[in-house]
């Protein structure tokens, strides 16, 4: 620590099992791609998965650490320069609210994969990048984080106003 600026990539799968993602970020190609983009640390929160990333990384100089669970995901997102996450809507909006660049990786093993809809829609609107485990390397290599648009959070006021109106309350 100290001498040069640390730039940490935080990988999170929450409480799910998403070995395909953990495996691919642990691969030499993805690590090289992250290193080339100027990242220095890789912190993996691996959830219920059984695949354990290798601590010592071959010839790349990326510092790798991994945890099954972390007490505060939010603190790790705050610390990160890039977040790579599973497609959980709560995690997506938490990361966007904290203004961190985000790559959402879709878990193709899930039966009802409706959450990829949200990631794809937000990717189309340039708020984040969306990838699959097998395309993560290309996504990292090609990414231009300056092109991402900040996400303006929505609000419940208009919905609540319509509900009040429906119930016959005066709109204030």
């Amino acid at each position, binding site marked *: 620590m100290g001498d040069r600026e640390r730039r940490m990539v935080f990988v999170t799968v929450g409480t799910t099992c998403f070995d395909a993602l953990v495996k691919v970020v642990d691969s030499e190609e993805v690590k090289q791609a992250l290193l080339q983009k100027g990242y220095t640390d890789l912190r993996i929160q691996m959830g219920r998965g059984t695949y354990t990333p290798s601590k010592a990384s071959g010839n790349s100089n990326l510092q790798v650490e991994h945890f099954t669970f972390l007490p505060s995901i939010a603190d790790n997102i705050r610390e990160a320069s890039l977040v790579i996450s599973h497609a959980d809507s709560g995690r997506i909006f938490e990361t966007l609210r904290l203004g961190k660049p985000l790559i959402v990786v879709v878990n193709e093993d899930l039966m009802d994969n*409706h959450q990829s*809809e*949200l990631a794809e829609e937000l990717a189309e609107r340039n708020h984040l990048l969306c990838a699959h485990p097998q395309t993560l390397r290309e996504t990292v290599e090609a990414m231009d984080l300056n092109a991402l648009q900040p996400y303006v959070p929505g609000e419940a*006021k208009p*919905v609540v106003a319509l*509900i009040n109106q429906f119930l016959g*309350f005066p709109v204030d």
Partner: protein
Amino acid sequence: MGFDAFAAACCAIPVLVSVLAVRVAYVLCRSGLPPSRSRASGLRCLIVLGSGGHTAEMMNIVSELQKDRFTPRYYVAALTDNMSLPKAQVYEKSLIHVEGDREMIIENAQFMQIYRSREVGQSYITSIATTLRATLHAMWLIIRIRPQVIFCNGPGTCIPLCASAFLLKVLGLGWSSIFYIESIARVKKLSLSGLLLYKLRMADQFFVQWPQLQQKYPRAQYAGRLM
């Protein structure tokens, strides 16, 4: 004697069926129209929470509600969900500072759990028994709470609760307005809960959070995103 009973049944059953049919038709027509009532006190609210982002979106709505109008508030979450109710409890406790009167607030908010119809991965045979249990439990909760307003946004537990509330309306035992706000995670298709409430016209107001979804389901309303 036996013949009389049979004849009576022959007359009574069609009458009962038609009365029920008329009630169902009335309730369906009446749904989506503002309730008529005196606005002297607050409305009893049932707020259905659920893991996987549902609670976060719901609490955004609850925090915008005028607390004097929407009171008391009954929060319901699945029995196996130990994350949702604490979030609502933290929020309700935070109101204490705003409004000061501690006992009032605790009385104004109650927290309940409900059996889930089916856990992920449960077999279909045992699902029949657990669905029955969940439905009866939902009915019991609705009869106890007699909500005037129901807020839900898609967890499976909202279906038996809304169905029970609908039954209460058909039987003329109480009226509730159902507000359904589809989760922001649904961009192209409604969730199963959303689809059921939409198709059966059980929700008085049905919101979606993406304009393209509103185009697909014209009876839904789009009023921006919650997150």
